[in-house]
């Protein structure tokens, strides 16, 4: 519940304060958000599986975000930033789908 409250508070703060993102970080933000979403869905699934561990969740969240940003950064340096970010988004999307499928099976037993 507190975790959900944290998410809601984050969205509200982002809308209200309208922070300015530094231009250097700007290209990595969408990928980082998608990677974080992947970690969150993985965490929810682990919770429903009864094996949620906060340490694992924190590490996976941070490493997901970092690695996604690194891949995009590397892609930008190599000149294939757009393609590589598409690839990252596809992979993360597949993982989000499989996790939501597991969550769905838990919640709806179907």
């Amino acid at each position: 519940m507190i975790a959900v409250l944290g998410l809601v508070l984050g969205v509200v703060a982002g809308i209200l304060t309208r922070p300015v993102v530094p231009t250097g970080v700007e290209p990595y933000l969408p990928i980082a958000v998608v990677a974080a979403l992947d970690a969150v869905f993985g965490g929810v699934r682990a919770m429903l599986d009864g094996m949620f561990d906060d340490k694992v969740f924190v590490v996976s969240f941070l490493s997901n975000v970092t690695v996604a940003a690194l891949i995009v950064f590397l892609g930008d340096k190599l000149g294939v930033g757009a393609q590589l970010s598409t690839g990252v988004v596809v992979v993360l999307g597949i993982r989000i789908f499989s996790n939501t499928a597991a969550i769905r099976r838990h919640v709806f037993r179907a």
Partner: protein
Amino acid sequence: MTDGTPHRPAGAHARHGGPAPHDTHERAETEPAVPEPAGPRALLDALWPPRVTRSQLLAAALLFALGLGLAIQVRAASSEETALRNARPEDLVRILSDLDDRTARLEDERARLEEQRTDLETSSDQAEEARRQTRERESQLGVLAGTVAAEGPGITLRIGDPRGAVEADMLLDAVQELRAAGAEAIQINDVRIVADTSFVDENGGVRIDGQPVGAPYLVSAIGRPQDLEPALNIPGGVVQSLENEGVGVIVDRPETVLVGALRSAEQPDYAQSSP
């Protein structure tokens, strides 16, 4: 990334084994008794009642960051700039050429309007200049024709004539000498001297333009004093010839000379101005 998320049972169990074995192990052990899917109740249990635990707080902090990033990104992506960034090259080319066309049209319009403005400005300037010149010319001509009063540097000439020796031609000589020296406006006593002024002898005096004028004759002339005074004083000139007649002449050079006598402007009967 795959080993980071805790949804693979094998890896997760391996990690849990060491540091925090108790509750997860207990659950893992009890779980085989319960059917495999946890069901919606597990989700509700996790949500309510709220438990302030370390894991909840950590998750809340991370989700706060996620929500923040999400809000920022959604707002950034919905801004107009991003619409262009995501547009296809063909669309961009079309938009660019549209903008070029629009710019060219606006430039044309601006040039036209500026030209119009310049025209208006110069025409009003010209009209103003013409009016100014006309006014100037009017006052110049007024001074010449004697219809306006004039003042300025010049000389005054006082001809004291107790015996009535001064004749019309002497005054005419003085006027012509002054004119030749550049006098711009002249009056004798209260009569303005202009181009068609007449001097006629009368017994004991002179008629100027039909008006009787008596001694002493006071001549005021506006012009360059340094020119006017020597012109009168040259040997054999006006002053000398008057003095030869026994007439006292005093030439003075005051600060300003006022020629205040006026003469009505007469419309010519036959002559018309021809441009």
